[in-house]
Protein backbone atom coordinates (compact mmCIF):
# COMPACT_ATOMS: atom_id res chain seq x y z
CA UNK A 1 0.00 0.00 0.00
CA UNK A 2 2.75 2.44 0.94
CA UNK A 3 4.29 2.13 -2.50
CA UNK A 4 1.17 3.33 -4.26
CA UNK A 5 1.44 7.01 -5.00
CA UNK A 6 -1.84 7.22 -6.90
CA UNK A 7 -4.70 4.83 -6.29
CA UNK A 8 -8.24 5.18 -7.61
CA UNK A 9 -11.22 2.89 -7.18
CA UNK A 10 -14.21 3.27 -9.49
CA UNK A 11 -13.38 6.93 -9.96
CA UNK A 12 -16.17 8.45 -12.03
CA UNK A 13 -16.88 11.96 -13.18
CA UNK A 14 -19.89 12.91 -15.26
CA UNK A 15 -21.05 16.33 -16.38
CA UNK A 16 -24.81 16.01 -16.48
CA UNK A 17 -25.34 13.51 -19.26
CA UNK A 18 -21.85 14.03 -20.65
CA UNK A 19 -19.10 11.55 -19.93
CA UNK A 20 -15.94 12.56 -18.14
CA UNK A 21 -14.31 9.38 -16.84
CA UNK A 22 -15.94 6.14 -15.83
CA UNK A 23 -15.00 3.65 -13.11
CA UNK A 24 -11.30 4.36 -13.30
CA UNK A 25 -9.14 1.92 -11.33
CA UNK A 26 -5.60 3.16 -11.48
CA UNK A 27 -2.48 2.36 -9.49
CA UNK A 28 0.77 4.21 -9.87
CA UNK A 29 3.81 2.92 -7.99
CA UNK A 30 6.34 5.05 -6.17
CA UNK A 31 9.45 5.74 -8.22
CA UNK A 32 8.00 5.01 -11.65
CA UNK A 33 7.27 7.19 -14.64
CA UNK A 34 3.72 6.45 -15.60
CA UNK A 35 2.43 7.58 -18.97
CA UNK A 36 -1.24 8.36 -19.20
CA UNK A 37 -2.22 8.10 -22.83
CA UNK A 38 -5.29 8.75 -24.84
CA UNK A 39 -6.69 10.87 -27.61
CA UNK A 40 -8.07 14.34 -26.93
CA UNK A 41 -11.31 14.15 -24.96
CA UNK A 42 -10.54 10.72 -23.53
CA UNK A 43 -10.58 12.11 -19.97
CA UNK A 44 -6.88 12.57 -19.16
CA UNK A 45 -7.19 16.15 -17.90
CA UNK A 46 -10.39 15.33 -16.00
CA UNK A 47 -8.54 12.55 -14.17
CA UNK A 48 -5.65 14.84 -13.29
CA UNK A 49 -7.99 17.57 -12.03
CA UNK A 50 -9.79 15.02 -9.86
CA UNK A 51 -6.46 14.02 -8.33
CA UNK A 52 -5.75 17.68 -7.57
CA UNK A 53 -9.22 18.29 -6.06
CA UNK A 54 -9.96 20.94 -8.69
CA UNK A 55 -12.89 18.73 -9.70
CA UNK A 56 -14.96 16.62 -7.36
CA UNK A 57 -15.77 13.00 -8.29
CA UNK A 58 -19.32 11.91 -9.03
CA UNK A 59 -18.53 8.46 -7.62
CA UNK A 60 -15.53 6.47 -6.52
CA UNK A 61 -12.46 7.34 -4.51
CA UNK A 62 -8.92 8.51 -5.11
CA UNK A 63 -5.86 8.46 -2.91
CA UNK A 64 -2.81 10.54 -3.75
CA UNK A 65 0.33 9.92 -1.67
CA UNK A 66 -1.98 7.89 0.56
CA UNK A 67 -4.22 10.88 1.24
CA UNK A 68 -7.73 11.87 0.20
CA UNK A 69 -7.59 14.88 -2.18
CA UNK A 70 -10.84 16.24 -0.73
CA UNK A 71 -9.78 16.16 2.91
CA UNK A 72 -6.03 16.51 2.62
CA UNK A 73 -5.68 18.53 -0.57
CA UNK A 74 -3.32 21.02 1.01
CA UNK A 75 -0.92 18.32 2.26
CA UNK A 76 -1.02 16.57 -1.13
CA UNK A 77 -0.31 19.74 -3.10
CA UNK A 78 2.57 20.56 -0.75
CA UNK A 79 4.23 17.31 -1.83
CA UNK A 80 3.41 17.40 -5.53
CA UNK A 81 4.22 19.52 -8.55
CA UNK A 82 1.82 20.13 -11.40
CA UNK A 83 2.07 21.42 -14.93
CA UNK A 84 -1.39 21.93 -16.47
CA UNK A 85 -2.10 21.18 -20.10
CA UNK A 86 -3.19 24.73 -20.76
CA UNK A 87 -0.82 26.68 -18.59
CA UNK A 88 -2.11 30.14 -17.67
CA UNK A 89 0.14 32.58 -15.83
CA UNK A 90 -0.29 36.23 -14.90
CA UNK A 91 0.81 38.11 -18.03
CA UNK A 92 2.00 41.22 -16.17
CA UNK A 93 4.42 39.37 -13.90
CA UNK A 94 7.92 38.38 -14.95
CA UNK A 95 9.00 34.76 -14.92
CA UNK A 96 10.98 35.44 -11.74
CA UNK A 97 7.99 37.09 -10.04
CA UNK A 98 5.75 34.14 -10.87
CA UNK A 99 8.31 31.75 -9.38
CA UNK A 100 8.73 33.95 -6.28
CA UNK A 101 4.95 34.10 -5.84
CA UNK A 102 4.67 30.33 -6.16
CA UNK A 103 7.58 29.85 -3.74
CA UNK A 104 5.85 32.04 -1.14
CA UNK A 105 2.57 30.14 -1.58
CA UNK A 106 4.54 26.94 -0.95
CA UNK A 107 6.10 28.40 2.18
CA UNK A 108 9.56 28.66 0.63
CA UNK A 109 11.56 26.94 -2.10
CA UNK A 110 15.38 26.69 -2.34
CA UNK A 111 16.47 29.56 -4.57
CA UNK A 112 19.43 27.56 -5.83
CA UNK A 113 17.07 24.97 -7.35
CA UNK A 114 15.18 27.67 -9.26
CA UNK A 115 18.47 29.03 -10.60
CA UNK A 116 19.64 25.53 -11.57
CA UNK A 117 16.43 24.68 -13.43
CA UNK A 118 16.34 28.06 -15.17
CA UNK A 119 19.90 27.47 -16.31
CA UNK A 120 19.17 23.98 -17.59
CA UNK A 121 16.10 25.14 -19.45
CA UNK A 122 17.94 28.25 -20.69
CA UNK A 123 15.29 30.85 -19.88
CA UNK A 124 15.58 34.56 -19.08
CA UNK A 125 13.34 35.03 -16.05
CA UNK A 126 13.48 38.82 -16.18
CA UNK A 127 10.92 39.18 -18.96
CA UNK A 128 7.17 39.52 -18.44
CA UNK A 129 5.06 36.44 -19.13
CA UNK A 130 3.21 38.26 -21.92
CA UNK A 131 6.51 38.64 -23.80
CA UNK A 132 7.31 34.92 -23.64
CA UNK A 133 6.76 32.49 -26.48
CA UNK A 134 4.58 29.48 -25.74
CA UNK A 135 7.69 27.37 -25.28
CA UNK A 136 9.18 29.78 -22.75
CA UNK A 137 5.93 29.89 -20.77
CA UNK A 138 6.04 26.11 -20.74
CA UNK A 139 9.58 26.27 -19.34
CA UNK A 140 8.36 28.50 -16.48
CA UNK A 141 5.59 25.96 -15.90
CA UNK A 142 8.13 23.15 -15.70
CA UNK A 143 10.21 25.06 -13.15
CA UNK A 144 7.00 25.66 -11.14
CA UNK A 145 6.31 21.93 -11.19
CA UNK A 146 9.83 20.80 -10.26
CA UNK A 147 11.45 23.53 -8.16
CA UNK A 148 10.30 22.23 -4.76
CA UNK A 149 11.52 18.68 -5.52
CA UNK A 150 8.05 17.15 -5.13
CA UNK A 151 7.48 13.47 -4.36
CA UNK A 152 4.95 13.32 -7.16
CA UNK A 153 5.15 15.28 -10.41
CA UNK A 154 2.00 15.45 -12.51
CA UNK A 155 2.53 16.81 -16.01
CA UNK A 156 -0.24 17.28 -18.56
CA UNK A 157 1.28 17.24 -22.07
CA UNK A 158 4.63 18.62 -20.80
CA UNK A 159 6.53 18.80 -24.08
CA UNK A 160 3.82 20.78 -25.82
CA UNK A 161 5.59 23.72 -27.48
CA UNK A 162 9.10 22.76 -26.42
CA UNK A 163 11.84 22.55 -29.02
CA UNK A 164 13.65 19.18 -29.33
CA UNK A 165 16.71 20.30 -27.37
CA UNK A 166 14.62 21.43 -24.42
CA UNK A 167 12.60 18.23 -24.64
CA UNK A 168 15.85 16.35 -24.09
CA UNK A 169 16.56 18.48 -21.01
CA UNK A 170 13.09 17.69 -19.71
CA UNK A 171 13.64 13.97 -20.27
CA UNK A 172 16.87 14.19 -18.28
CA UNK A 173 15.09 16.06 -15.49
CA UNK A 174 12.40 13.39 -15.34
CA UNK A 175 15.05 10.67 -15.31
CA UNK A 176 16.57 12.54 -12.36
CA UNK A 177 13.21 12.54 -10.57
CA UNK A 178 12.99 8.77 -11.08
CA UNK A 179 16.56 8.24 -9.86
CA UNK A 180 15.62 10.11 -6.65
CA UNK A 181 12.84 7.58 -6.09
CA UNK A 182 10.18 10.15 -6.84
CA UNK A 183 7.23 9.55 -9.16
CA UNK A 184 6.13 11.09 -12.44
CA UNK A 185 2.60 10.83 -13.80
CA UNK A 186 2.25 12.44 -17.15
CA UNK A 187 -0.26 12.55 -19.90
CA UNK A 188 0.93 12.58 -23.46
CA UNK A 189 0.10 11.63 -26.96
CA UNK A 190 3.71 11.89 -28.15
CA UNK A 191 4.59 8.23 -28.35
CA UNK A 192 8.35 8.45 -28.86
CA UNK A 193 8.63 10.27 -25.53
CA UNK A 194 6.44 7.63 -23.91
CA UNK A 195 8.80 4.95 -25.23
CA UNK A 196 11.79 6.97 -24.11
CA UNK A 197 10.57 7.72 -20.58
CA UNK A 198 7.85 5.51 -19.24
CA UNK A 199 8.03 2.39 -17.16
CA UNK A 200 4.33 1.76 -17.60
CA UNK A 201 1.50 3.33 -19.51
CA UNK A 202 -2.25 3.49 -19.01
CA UNK A 203 -4.41 3.76 -22.07
CA UNK A 204 -7.56 5.79 -21.66
CA UNK A 205 -10.33 5.41 -24.20
CA UNK A 206 -13.69 7.18 -24.00
CA UNK A 207 -13.31 7.80 -20.28
CA UNK A 208 -12.36 4.25 -19.40
CA UNK A 209 -8.99 2.77 -18.60
CA UNK A 210 -8.66 0.32 -21.47
CA UNK A 211 -5.24 -1.10 -20.59
CA UNK A 212 -2.22 -0.75 -18.34
CA UNK A 213 1.01 -2.18 -19.71
CA UNK A 214 4.73 -1.94 -19.27
CA UNK A 215 6.39 -0.32 -22.24
CA UNK A 216 8.30 -3.56 -22.82
CA UNK A 217 5.02 -5.46 -22.82
CA UNK A 218 3.52 -3.02 -25.25
CA UNK A 219 6.40 -3.54 -27.61
CA UNK A 220 5.79 -7.27 -27.41
CA UNK A 221 2.26 -6.64 -28.50
CA UNK A 222 3.24 -3.95 -30.91
CA UNK A 223 2.83 -4.20 -34.60
CA UNK A 224 5.96 -4.72 -36.69
CA UNK A 225 6.41 -4.76 -40.42
CA UNK A 226 8.44 -7.62 -41.91
CA UNK A 227 9.72 -8.29 -45.44
CA UNK A 228 10.92 -11.76 -46.54
CA UNK A 229 12.99 -11.88 -49.70
CA UNK A 230 12.91 -15.40 -51.24
CA UNK A 231 14.90 -17.05 -53.99
CA UNK A 232 11.75 -17.99 -55.87
CA UNK A 233 8.03 -17.38 -56.09
CA UNK A 234 5.92 -17.49 -52.91
CA UNK A 235 2.19 -17.88 -52.26
CA UNK A 236 0.61 -15.18 -50.05
CA UNK A 237 -2.19 -17.61 -49.14
CA UNK A 238 0.26 -19.69 -47.06
CA UNK A 239 0.67 -16.71 -44.72
CA UNK A 240 -2.76 -15.08 -44.56
CA UNK A 241 -4.13 -17.65 -42.11
CA UNK A 242 -1.31 -17.23 -39.58
CA UNK A 243 -2.66 -15.61 -36.36
CA UNK A 244 -1.52 -11.96 -35.99
CA UNK A 245 -0.47 -11.61 -39.62
CA UNK A 246 -2.20 -9.00 -41.76
CA UNK A 247 -1.67 -6.89 -44.87
CA UNK A 248 0.12 -9.72 -46.72
CA UNK A 249 1.43 -8.59 -50.09
CA UNK A 250 3.68 -10.27 -52.65
CA UNK A 251 5.83 -8.30 -55.05
CA UNK A 252 8.10 -10.45 -57.19
CA UNK A 253 10.01 -12.69 -54.77
CA UNK A 254 9.36 -10.33 -51.83
CA UNK A 255 6.66 -11.02 -49.27
CA UNK A 256 5.63 -8.09 -47.02
CA UNK A 257 3.29 -8.21 -44.06
CA UNK A 258 2.36 -6.70 -40.71
CA UNK A 259 2.73 -8.93 -37.67
CA UNK A 260 1.46 -8.50 -34.15
CA UNK A 261 2.71 -10.69 -31.32
CA UNK A 262 4.69 -13.90 -31.52
CA UNK A 263 6.70 -14.56 -34.70
CA UNK A 264 7.14 -18.32 -34.28
CA UNK A 265 4.37 -19.51 -36.64
CA UNK A 266 5.39 -17.00 -39.25
CA UNK A 267 9.06 -18.02 -39.22
CA UNK A 268 8.10 -21.69 -39.52
CA UNK A 269 5.83 -20.95 -42.51
CA UNK A 270 8.56 -18.89 -44.21
CA UNK A 271 11.11 -21.68 -43.65
CA UNK A 272 9.24 -23.81 -46.17
CA UNK A 273 10.62 -21.50 -48.87
CA UNK A 274 14.25 -20.66 -49.67
CA UNK A 275 14.78 -17.44 -47.73
CA UNK A 276 17.46 -15.06 -48.98
CA UNK A 277 16.90 -12.21 -46.52
CA UNK A 278 14.60 -10.95 -43.76
CA UNK A 279 14.06 -7.23 -43.10
CA UNK A 280 12.25 -6.26 -39.88
CA UNK A 281 11.31 -2.79 -38.81
CA UNK A 282 11.35 -1.44 -35.21
CA UNK A 283 8.00 -1.98 -33.51
CA UNK A 284 6.09 1.24 -33.77
CA UNK A 285 3.95 2.10 -30.78
CA UNK A 286 2.16 4.75 -32.75
CA UNK A 287 0.79 2.19 -35.18
CA UNK A 288 -0.15 0.01 -32.23
CA UNK A 289 -2.08 2.81 -30.55
CA UNK A 290 -3.78 3.86 -33.75
CA UNK A 291 -4.91 0.30 -34.31
CA UNK A 292 -5.86 0.00 -30.66
CA UNK A 293 -8.13 3.03 -30.71
CA UNK A 294 -9.45 2.35 -34.19
CA UNK A 295 -10.42 -1.22 -33.43
CA UNK A 296 -11.53 -0.66 -29.82
CA UNK A 297 -8.88 -3.01 -28.51
CA UNK A 298 -9.09 -4.38 -25.02
CA UNK A 299 -5.85 -5.39 -23.40
CA UNK A 300 -6.62 -6.06 -19.79
CA UNK A 301 -4.55 -4.45 -17.07
Amino acid at each position, binding site marked *: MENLVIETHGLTKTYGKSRGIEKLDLRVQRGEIFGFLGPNGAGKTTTI*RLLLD*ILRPTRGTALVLGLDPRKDG*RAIRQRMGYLPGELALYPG*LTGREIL*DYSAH*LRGGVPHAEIVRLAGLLDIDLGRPIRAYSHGNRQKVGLILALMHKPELVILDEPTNGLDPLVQQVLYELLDEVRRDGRTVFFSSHVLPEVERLCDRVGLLREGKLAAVETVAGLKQKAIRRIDFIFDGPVSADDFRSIPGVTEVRVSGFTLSMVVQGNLDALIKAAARYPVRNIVTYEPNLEEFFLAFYREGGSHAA
Partner: protein
Amino acid sequence: MLRNIFLKTLRDQTMAVLYWGLGIGSLAVFTQLFYPTLSVNDQLNKFIGSLPQGFMAFLGNVQYVGSVEGYMTYSLLIYLPLALAIYAVAAAIGMVTAEVDTGTMEFLLSHPVPRWKILLEKYAALAAAILGIGLLIGASMALGGWIIGSDVPAVKWILAGLQTVPITLFFGSVAFGLAAAVRGSSTAAGAAATLAVGGFILNGLVPLSVKLAPVKEWTLYYWYSASSPLSTGIFPVHAAILILLSIVCFGAGLAVFQRRDILP
Protein backbone atom coordinates in the same frame (compact mmCIF):
# COMPACT_ATOMS: atom_id res chain seq x y z
CA MET B 1 3.70 42.42 -2.82
CA LEU B 2 3.90 38.80 -3.98
CA ARG B 3 4.13 37.23 -0.56
CA ASN B 4 0.54 36.02 -0.50
CA ILE B 5 -2.74 36.11 -2.42
CA PHE B 6 -4.02 39.13 -0.46
CA LEU B 7 -1.03 41.30 -1.35
CA LYS B 8 -0.91 40.07 -4.96
CA THR B 9 -4.61 40.86 -5.41
CA LEU B 10 -4.17 44.25 -3.78
CA ARG B 11 -1.23 44.95 -6.07
CA ASP B 12 -3.45 44.11 -9.06
CA GLN B 13 -5.99 46.67 -7.79
CA THR B 14 -3.51 49.49 -7.12
CA MET B 15 -4.05 51.42 -10.34
CA ALA B 16 -7.83 50.98 -10.23
CA VAL B 17 -7.90 52.26 -6.63
CA LEU B 18 -5.85 55.31 -7.61
CA TYR B 19 -7.96 56.02 -10.71
CA TRP B 20 -11.25 55.66 -8.87
CA GLY B 21 -10.15 57.34 -5.63
CA LEU B 22 -8.36 60.26 -7.21
CA GLY B 23 -10.85 60.54 -10.09
CA ILE B 24 -13.88 60.85 -7.83
CA GLY B 25 -11.78 62.83 -5.36
CA SER B 26 -10.97 65.36 -8.07
CA LEU B 27 -14.64 65.57 -8.97
CA ALA B 28 -15.40 66.23 -5.30
CA VAL B 29 -12.86 69.04 -5.08
CA PHE B 30 -14.16 70.51 -8.35
CA THR B 31 -17.72 70.41 -6.96
CA GLN B 32 -16.63 72.05 -3.70
CA LEU B 33 -14.96 74.90 -5.59
CA PHE B 34 -18.38 76.00 -6.86
CA TYR B 35 -19.81 76.30 -3.38
CA PRO B 36 -18.48 79.80 -2.49
CA THR B 37 -19.99 81.25 -5.67
CA LEU B 38 -23.35 79.54 -5.21
CA SER B 39 -23.63 80.43 -1.56
CA VAL B 40 -23.21 84.19 -2.17
CA ASN B 41 -26.45 86.13 -1.64
CA ASP B 42 -28.24 82.97 -0.57
CA GLN B 43 -28.49 81.82 -4.20
CA LEU B 44 -28.18 78.20 -3.17
CA ASN B 45 -31.11 78.28 -0.76
CA LYS B 46 -33.21 80.10 -3.36
CA PHE B 47 -32.31 77.49 -5.96
CA ILE B 48 -33.13 74.62 -3.62
CA GLY B 49 -36.37 76.29 -2.58
CA SER B 50 -37.40 76.36 -6.23
CA LEU B 51 -36.97 72.60 -6.65
CA PRO B 52 -40.12 70.41 -6.61
CA GLN B 53 -40.77 68.60 -3.33
CA GLY B 54 -40.67 65.25 -5.11
CA PHE B 55 -37.22 65.91 -6.51
CA MET B 56 -35.94 66.92 -3.09
CA ALA B 57 -37.36 63.70 -1.69
CA PHE B 58 -35.53 61.77 -4.39
CA LEU B 59 -32.26 63.28 -3.18
CA GLY B 60 -32.83 61.72 0.20
CA ASN B 61 -32.50 62.92 3.74
CA VAL B 62 -30.55 66.07 3.01
CA GLN B 63 -30.31 68.42 5.92
CA TYR B 64 -28.61 71.77 6.02
CA VAL B 65 -29.22 72.08 2.32
CA GLY B 66 -27.77 75.56 2.14
CA SER B 67 -24.55 74.61 3.93
CA VAL B 68 -21.47 73.15 2.25
CA GLU B 69 -22.26 69.82 3.94
CA GLY B 70 -25.75 69.69 2.43
CA TYR B 71 -24.50 70.97 -0.91
CA MET B 72 -21.90 68.19 -1.15
CA THR B 73 -24.39 65.57 -0.02
CA TYR B 74 -26.94 66.18 -2.75
CA SER B 75 -24.37 67.21 -5.37
CA LEU B 76 -22.16 64.16 -5.03
CA LEU B 77 -22.34 61.89 -2.01
CA ILE B 78 -25.87 60.66 -2.62
CA TYR B 79 -24.84 59.27 -6.03
CA LEU B 80 -21.44 57.88 -5.06
CA PRO B 81 -22.53 54.32 -4.21
CA LEU B 82 -23.94 53.92 -7.73
CA ALA B 83 -20.61 54.90 -9.28
CA LEU B 84 -18.51 52.92 -6.82
CA ALA B 85 -20.71 49.85 -7.34
CA ILE B 86 -19.34 49.72 -10.90
CA TYR B 87 -15.82 49.41 -9.53
CA ALA B 88 -16.76 46.93 -6.81
CA VAL B 89 -18.67 44.60 -9.14
CA ALA B 90 -16.00 44.69 -11.84
CA ALA B 91 -13.22 44.08 -9.32
CA ALA B 92 -15.07 41.22 -7.62
CA ILE B 93 -15.75 39.47 -10.91
CA GLY B 94 -12.16 40.06 -11.99
CA MET B 95 -10.86 38.45 -8.81
CA VAL B 96 -12.91 35.27 -9.14
CA THR B 97 -14.56 34.67 -12.52
CA ALA B 98 -11.75 36.17 -14.59
CA GLU B 99 -9.17 34.01 -12.78
CA VAL B 100 -11.26 30.92 -13.51
CA ASP B 101 -11.88 31.88 -17.14
CA THR B 102 -8.25 32.74 -17.91
CA GLY B 103 -6.99 29.64 -16.14
CA THR B 104 -4.88 31.34 -13.47
CA MET B 105 -7.20 29.92 -10.79
CA GLU B 106 -5.73 26.52 -11.71
CA PHE B 107 -2.30 27.97 -10.92
CA LEU B 108 -3.53 28.97 -7.44
CA LEU B 109 -5.38 25.70 -6.85
CA SER B 110 -2.24 23.69 -7.59
CA HIS B 111 -0.56 25.23 -4.53
CA PRO B 112 -0.92 24.09 -0.92
CA VAL B 113 -3.49 26.77 -0.17
CA PRO B 114 -7.05 25.72 0.71
CA ARG B 115 -9.90 26.99 -1.39
CA TRP B 116 -11.40 29.03 1.44
CA LYS B 117 -8.10 30.84 1.98
CA ILE B 118 -7.78 31.75 -1.69
CA LEU B 119 -11.24 33.28 -1.61
CA LEU B 120 -10.85 34.94 1.81
CA GLU B 121 -7.59 36.64 0.86
CA LYS B 122 -9.11 37.92 -2.36
CA TYR B 123 -12.17 39.20 -0.52
CA ALA B 124 -9.97 40.93 2.05
CA ALA B 125 -8.13 42.61 -0.83
CA LEU B 126 -11.45 43.77 -2.31
CA ALA B 127 -12.45 45.26 1.05
CA ALA B 128 -9.05 46.95 1.42
CA ALA B 129 -9.29 48.39 -2.10
CA ILE B 130 -12.77 49.79 -1.43
CA LEU B 131 -11.49 51.24 1.85
CA GLY B 132 -8.60 52.84 -0.04
CA ILE B 133 -10.96 54.47 -2.53
CA GLY B 134 -13.16 55.77 0.31
CA LEU B 135 -10.11 57.22 2.05
CA LEU B 136 -8.88 58.93 -1.11
CA ILE B 137 -12.31 60.45 -1.71
CA GLY B 138 -12.51 61.61 1.93
CA ALA B 139 -9.01 63.06 1.84
CA SER B 140 -9.81 64.87 -1.42
CA MET B 141 -12.92 66.42 0.11
CA ALA B 142 -10.87 67.50 3.13
CA LEU B 143 -8.46 69.18 0.71
CA GLY B 144 -11.37 70.84 -1.12
CA GLY B 145 -12.82 72.03 2.19
CA TRP B 146 -9.47 73.56 3.10
CA ILE B 147 -9.20 75.27 -0.31
CA ILE B 148 -12.61 76.94 -0.01
CA GLY B 149 -11.98 77.81 3.64
CA SER B 150 -14.79 75.66 5.00
CA ASP B 151 -15.03 75.40 8.79
CA VAL B 152 -16.07 71.74 8.53
CA PRO B 153 -13.31 69.69 10.25
CA ALA B 154 -11.16 67.57 7.95
CA VAL B 155 -12.09 64.44 9.89
CA LYS B 156 -15.75 64.91 8.94
CA TRP B 157 -14.86 65.02 5.24
CA ILE B 158 -12.75 61.89 5.61
CA LEU B 159 -15.55 60.11 7.45
CA ALA B 160 -17.94 61.15 4.67
CA GLY B 161 -15.62 59.44 2.17
CA LEU B 162 -15.37 56.35 4.36
CA GLN B 163 -19.14 56.23 4.68
CA THR B 164 -19.25 54.96 1.07
CA VAL B 165 -17.25 51.87 2.07
CA PRO B 166 -19.95 49.64 3.64
CA ILE B 167 -22.50 50.00 0.84
CA THR B 168 -19.83 49.66 -1.86
CA LEU B 169 -18.55 46.58 -0.08
CA PHE B 170 -22.07 45.21 -0.04
CA PHE B 171 -22.49 45.50 -3.83
CA GLY B 172 -19.00 44.05 -4.28
CA SER B 173 -19.89 41.20 -1.93
CA VAL B 174 -23.05 40.34 -3.87
CA ALA B 175 -20.97 40.09 -7.06
CA PHE B 176 -18.11 38.28 -5.28
CA GLY B 177 -20.42 35.73 -3.65
CA LEU B 178 -22.20 34.97 -6.90
CA ALA B 179 -18.94 34.83 -8.86
CA ALA B 180 -17.70 32.26 -6.34
CA ALA B 181 -20.90 30.24 -6.51
CA VAL B 182 -21.79 30.31 -10.20
CA ARG B 183 -19.77 29.91 -13.41
CA GLY B 184 -19.63 32.92 -15.73
CA SER B 185 -19.90 36.58 -14.89
CA SER B 186 -23.40 37.48 -16.09
CA THR B 187 -25.27 36.29 -12.98
CA ALA B 188 -22.93 38.13 -10.62
CA ALA B 189 -22.89 41.33 -12.66
CA GLY B 190 -26.62 41.27 -13.34
CA ALA B 191 -27.70 40.68 -9.75
CA ALA B 192 -25.34 43.26 -8.28
CA ALA B 193 -26.27 45.88 -10.88
CA THR B 194 -29.99 45.26 -10.32
CA LEU B 195 -29.58 45.73 -6.57
CA ALA B 196 -27.51 48.88 -7.02
CA VAL B 197 -29.70 50.65 -9.57
CA GLY B 198 -33.03 49.26 -8.40
CA GLY B 199 -32.24 50.06 -4.77
CA PHE B 200 -31.27 53.62 -5.67
CA ILE B 201 -34.49 54.27 -7.56
CA LEU B 202 -36.64 52.62 -4.89
CA ASN B 203 -34.93 54.62 -2.16
CA GLY B 204 -35.80 57.81 -4.05
CA LEU B 205 -39.41 56.79 -4.52
CA VAL B 206 -40.08 55.71 -0.92
CA PRO B 207 -40.62 59.25 0.48
CA LEU B 208 -43.14 59.97 -2.28
CA SER B 209 -45.55 57.20 -1.34
CA VAL B 210 -46.93 56.20 2.03
CA LYS B 211 -47.46 52.68 0.71
CA LEU B 212 -43.75 52.31 0.02
CA ALA B 213 -42.71 53.44 3.51
CA PRO B 214 -42.46 49.89 4.97
CA VAL B 215 -39.84 48.91 2.39
CA LYS B 216 -37.47 51.80 2.96
CA GLU B 217 -35.01 49.71 4.97
CA TRP B 218 -34.95 47.11 2.20
CA THR B 219 -33.56 49.49 -0.38
CA LEU B 220 -30.14 49.25 1.30
CA TYR B 221 -29.43 52.86 0.33
CA TYR B 222 -31.41 53.75 3.44
CA TRP B 223 -28.56 52.37 5.54
CA TYR B 224 -26.20 54.61 3.62
CA SER B 225 -28.21 57.82 3.29
CA ALA B 226 -30.07 57.86 6.59
CA SER B 227 -26.93 58.96 8.36
CA SER B 228 -24.20 61.29 7.25
CA PRO B 229 -21.03 62.29 9.05
CA LEU B 230 -21.48 65.74 7.50
CA SER B 231 -25.02 66.40 8.75
CA THR B 232 -26.79 63.90 10.97
CA GLY B 233 -23.68 62.30 12.39
CA ILE B 234 -22.54 58.69 12.22
CA PHE B 235 -24.79 55.77 13.13
CA PRO B 236 -22.43 52.81 13.40
CA VAL B 237 -25.36 50.39 13.39
CA HIS B 238 -26.18 51.39 9.80
CA ALA B 239 -22.66 50.60 8.65
CA ALA B 240 -22.65 47.41 10.71
CA ILE B 241 -25.84 46.17 9.02
CA LEU B 242 -24.31 46.66 5.56
CA ILE B 243 -21.06 45.01 6.60
CA LEU B 244 -22.96 42.09 8.13
CA LEU B 245 -24.96 41.62 4.93
CA SER B 246 -21.70 41.76 2.96
CA ILE B 247 -20.19 39.00 5.07
CA VAL B 248 -23.33 36.89 4.60
CA CYS B 249 -23.04 37.25 0.79
CA PHE B 250 -19.35 36.34 0.92
CA GLY B 251 -19.99 33.40 3.24
CA ALA B 252 -22.73 32.01 1.02
CA GLY B 253 -20.47 32.22 -2.04
CA LEU B 254 -17.61 30.61 -0.12
CA ALA B 255 -19.81 27.71 1.00
CA VAL B 256 -20.65 26.87 -2.63
CA PHE B 257 -17.07 27.47 -3.83
CA GLN B 258 -15.84 24.92 -1.29
CA ARG B 259 -18.01 22.23 -2.86
CA ARG B 260 -18.20 22.94 -6.55
CA ASP B 261 -16.05 22.01 -9.53
CA ILE B 262 -13.87 25.01 -10.17
CA LEU B 263 -12.89 24.18 -13.74
CA PRO B 264 -14.66 22.18 -16.46
